[in-house]
């Protein structure tokens, strides 16, 4: 094998490897993005389910453990009138958010602790949720 042939074959091999790795990495990113979106959707729906059911039964205290809501670690951020779930992955991060109904508001802004106590109280026609860190 001449040195010219060697250089060409090495370059071709590198090019093929680059193409394959690009395809693999892209597919991994896509798959992870889809997975995270689904998890975020699921977590948001389950949390909404818990919060809105509890609001209908107020006054009530609910202990929420995020590890029991969904099987992957998620971040839940709330403010007075909205709730967002963020799922972080190696390549992709997904966020799903929803506006809370007008009769419900959180008296809390920021990340929900992974274990927390939600105190639902009725004030007139509104249900107010106070958040405390769970044990």
């Amino acid at each position: 094998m001449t040195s010219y042939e060697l250089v060409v074959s090495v370059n071709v091999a590198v090019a093929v490897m680059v193409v394959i790795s690009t395809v693999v990495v892209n597919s991994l990113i896509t798959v992870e993005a889809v997975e995270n979106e689904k998890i975020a959707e699921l977590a948001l729906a389950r949390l909404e389910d818990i919060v809105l059911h509890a609001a209908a039964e107020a006054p009530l205290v609910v202990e929420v453990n995020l590890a029991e809501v969904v099987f992957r670690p998620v971040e839940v951020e709330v403010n007075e009138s909205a709730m967002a779930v963020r799922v972080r992955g190696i390549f992709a991060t997904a966020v799903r958010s929803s506006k809370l109904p007008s009769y419900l508001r959180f008296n809390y802004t920021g990340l929900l602790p992974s274990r927390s106590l939600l105190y639902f109280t009725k004030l007139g026609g509104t249900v107010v949720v106070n958040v405390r860190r769970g044990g």
Partner: protein
Amino acid sequence: MHRLLAEIACTLLLALMIASIYARQVSITSLMVSEIDVSLVRFVTRSRLFNVVFKVSEVWRVVEVYEKLFNETLSFKLLPALNLTLAPTPEGVRVYVRGWSGLVVPFVNISVSRIRGCELLEYGEGVAELGYVDLRMDYDSSDIYVIFACIERLYTFSLLAPENLVRHWYEWEGGLVRNESRVERVFLLVPHYRAPIEANFTVVEGALDVEEEPGTVAYLLGVEGGWVLVPRLPVPYNPPISKPRELFKYLICDLEGVGYALVVEVGG
């Protein structure tokens, strides 16, 4: 020797890389192939369909939530608890009573009021023993028919009226009737009563605040040039979108202490 070792190391490295990628793919493939559809759960929680007894405004709120958020992902129907239909016969009219699955519901007490303008023209009642009852009254498609069905404490109703008489003027948020014509008289349709009942009303910010009787399901408004019917409940609500049924639930709409049974059907 060195070359052979290098080749083996490269091959092992490549195999390891491929195996790790496959392992990750396999760990998330189940989620990739699975379909997560949370629309129905979200609709039920958002609209508070987990309750059984609803006020008028809560029934309207269910429809509003559907129209705002889920009208593309779900199908939704709000109907009387029983499928009540009326057909003319040579002797009068026949009222058919079926469940929404098509099954015959036996021994249902039926009453029908035929109303023109604000006046009761005819009234008939009977028991639908095997899915229908024949009543001696005339049928005219330009009249309003109030069909009232009762089994023990289950009450439901169906209003049959020509399209040109129906106005959707009821504002559920304030419980007012936002009339577009000058209203002279107001009558109430209460299925428990045979005839429409005249009601007092006041004008509040251009809308009518009517003093309802318990169980009022619609208003008859005397406007210039005739009478119009304003339903108080969004029943029947039956948009054309159709999807496989996932939820079928009976609910009670409480109208000032009188409960009417309705059916909610959601498809996804």
